[in-house]
């Protein structure tokens, strides 16, 4: 799954996802990616977020909507992402998932749920400072 967030230089926001879903899924199964507020969410007044992971669990918590709401409340993007991961983990400690968050001032962050086989999450950033697509990593919580 790719989840993407774009903040235009004029402050306009957009977000999106694309995926071929879960291997060996039951035919007809749709994951979190195409569900607004789960796979991705954007609002010019605040910013945008996108999520990736096991969609059957994550979609129930609307992670990208929730991240935007935390940012609306003034949380830093990285903290907003972490709070979403913590919410899900409370019910499903072993869920596989990560969230990326950005606000309209250009700040961004990411968070992921730490598993024995998943301790760091890699994501891509491009802004006038990086001057090229730059990979960043975040330690999972």
């Amino acid at each position: 799954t790719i989840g993407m967030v774009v903040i235009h230089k004029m402050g306009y926001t957009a977000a999106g996802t694309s995926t071929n879903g879960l291997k060996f899924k039951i035919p007809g199964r749709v994951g979190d990616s195409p569900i607004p507020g789960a796979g991705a969410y954007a609002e010019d007044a605040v910013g945008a977020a996108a999520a990736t992971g096991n969609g059957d669990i994550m979609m129930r918590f609307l992670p990208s909507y929730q991240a935007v709401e935390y940012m609306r409340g003034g949380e830093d993007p990285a903290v907003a992402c972490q709070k979403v991961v913590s919410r899900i983990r409370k019910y499903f400690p072993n869920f596989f998932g990560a969230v990326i968050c950005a606000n309209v001032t250009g700040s961004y962050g990411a968070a992921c749920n730490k598993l024995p086989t998943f301790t760091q999450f890699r994501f891509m950033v491009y802004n006038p400072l990086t001057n090229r697509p730059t990979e960043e990593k975040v330690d999972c919580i």
Partner: protein
Amino acid sequence: CGPLPLVLNTWPFQNATEAAWETLVAGGSALDAVESGCAACEREQCDNTVGFGGSPDESGETTLDAMIMDGTTMNVGAVGALRRIKNAIGVARKVLEHTAHTLLVGDSATKFAKSMGFISEDLSTNASRALHADWLAQNCQPNYWRNVIPDASKYCGPYKPPSILKQDRSTYRETGNNYGHD
């Protein structure tokens, strides 16, 4: 604060990031940038978790999910379980622009896509067919059935619910463990 514009995407899919940025540089909108970034991954089958030829379902078919959201208008276009169309994010953009709906799914989403000029084609590849054949040979493990007979942790289907008499009273509680991911 960081400088704008900003492109951010999950996983190290660098070409997607690049494609989105170039769209912005060329004067495209934030929406155009998201569409071109995600479409780059659909074409390149990023990590085999995006686009055609990945994640076959139990019947061996690859279906696609995608969404795109405009944070200015709060308009959304999305497709779920899209069959036989490669450019899922492109179809999602058409749902946003040419319908008052948000999400179209399955065969009907394919019909809509064809009416918008998208080509219908097989989304399987030798790789996805081989992946599916291996899965069948391993008694269809892992799978996402619960509380059925035959025992889904040992056998392939078809499955059915255990008879009412024997049905386990306690409601099944998912743990979230050993899940795959989208």
